């Protein structure tokens, strides 16, 4: 660690969004950088609401630190290979430029006064970005709805104790079709040296729909370059249910409903085959704009079996995206729920 200048940041107030672009749902995110602001890599990933450490480890961070030092040693000769790691143009320079955050926070924390209340949290940046589109009655872009996809979105399971060691490949996935195998190490992705799962997420975050991504993999003593082919909908299958920022999406698209996939047992009891929609209401919001579904008649344990005419199986994350892409605030979506075995027709207001 003494080979680095270490900086700890605890606030998003006045965050330079033109430089620090990362998964704002994280509570732990790392940048490896040069003093000239060139980014060598990122570290910090999460895919579970309760378990914040599932996708990170001391060993993995250690490997990333060593790799970052190696990039620093060869800098600036390697500058061209780092081009893809650099930030993209930002819509707003700092979070307080977003309309929903404007004037609410000072640039510095108020240590002498209400220090807790003076702190802007990172997740508020993503919330504000989504509100920016929604409040302007514009579709929320897919990369804003489904940010920083985990490698499992393309079928890769990465060992978090390594930089980018492949633990498993899902049959039929883009990674499988590309020929990546368990035991491989992803050396570069889309030409970028990979230091961590977060680095892979950065590539995926900025990938198109569809996209072709070259991946250099190390297998044993050899290296080969494979090609990942992502279809136009690949991002829309990402799981965002764990994210803190999905709470506000549930307000917009679900009137405050928290939905879970019905279990196999629940499907059996309700006589619902495995390929049809069956999302069980786990929680109904009680207050303000999160109580809109409650006021519309939805109850805990209702099972949604038809939403706007859709009856095919989908996850809560997919349904949220579908509703936000196709509806605007003020629309009312016809929904059929199963309640104690009876079908009940309701209307779900969009916000």
């Amino acid at each position, binding site marked *: 660690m003494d080979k680095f*200048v270490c900086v700890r940041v605890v606030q998003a107030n006045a965050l*330079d969004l033109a430089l620090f672009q990362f998964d704002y749902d994280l509570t732990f995110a790392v940048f490896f950088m040069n003093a000239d602001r060139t980014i060598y890599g990122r570290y910090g990933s999460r895919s579970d609401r309760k378990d914040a450490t599932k996708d990170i480890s001391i060993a993995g961070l250690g490997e990333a630190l060593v790799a970052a030092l190696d990039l620093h040693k060869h800098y600036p000769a390697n500058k061209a290979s780092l081009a893809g790691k650099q930030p993209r143009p930002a819509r707003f320079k700092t979070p307080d430029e977003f309309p929903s955050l404007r004037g609410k926070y000072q640039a510095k924390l108020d240590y002498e006064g209400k220090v807790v209340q003076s702190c802007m949290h990172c997740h508020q940046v993503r919330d504000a970005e989504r509100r920016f589109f929604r409040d302007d009655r514009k579709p929320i872009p897919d990369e804003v709805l489904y940010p920083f996809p985990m490698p499992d979105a393309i079928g890769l399971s990465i060992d978090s104790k390594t930089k980018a060691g492949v633990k498993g490949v899902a049959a039929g996935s883009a990674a499988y079709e590309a020929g990546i195998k368990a035991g491989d190490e992803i050396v570069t992705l889309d030409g970028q040296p990979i230091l961590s799962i977060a680095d892979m997420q950065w590539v995926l975050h900025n990938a198109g729909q569809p996209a072709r991504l070259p991946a250099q993999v190390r297998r044993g003593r050899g290296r080969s370059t494979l090609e990942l082919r992502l279809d136009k909908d690949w991002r829309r299958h990402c799981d965002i249910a764990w994210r803190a920022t999905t709470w506000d999406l549930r307000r917009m698209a679900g009137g405050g409903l928290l939905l879970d996939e019905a279990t196999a047992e629940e499907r059996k009891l309700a006589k619902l085959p495995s390929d049809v929609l069956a999302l069980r209401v786990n929680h109904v919001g009680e207050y303000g704009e999160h109580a809109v579904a409650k006021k519309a008649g939805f109850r805990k344990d209702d099972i949604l079996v038809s939403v706007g005419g859709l009856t095919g199986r989908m996850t809560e994350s997919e349904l949220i995206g579908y509703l936000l892409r196709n509806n605007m605030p003020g629309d009312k979506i016809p929904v059929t729920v199963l309640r104690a075995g009876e079908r009940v027709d309701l209307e779900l207001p969009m916000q």
Partner: protein
Amino acid sequence: MNAPIAILIASLFLAATALNAAEDRRERVLNDRKEVANAGQWIYNDLAEGFAEAGRTGKPLLVVFRCVP
């Protein structure tokens, strides 16, 4: 106990709990700054100083975004 008194007591209890939680968090935020500063190796919440130090020393930067738990 009649309903209004029960509601009042419940409200006061909840308010006190919330106040304690807020105080706890305030303490944690203030202590965090103290502890990290005392540890010596970290620059706390000052990116400009971090970039300047990296420029002076030629070392790379490790920037950690971490909420106070």
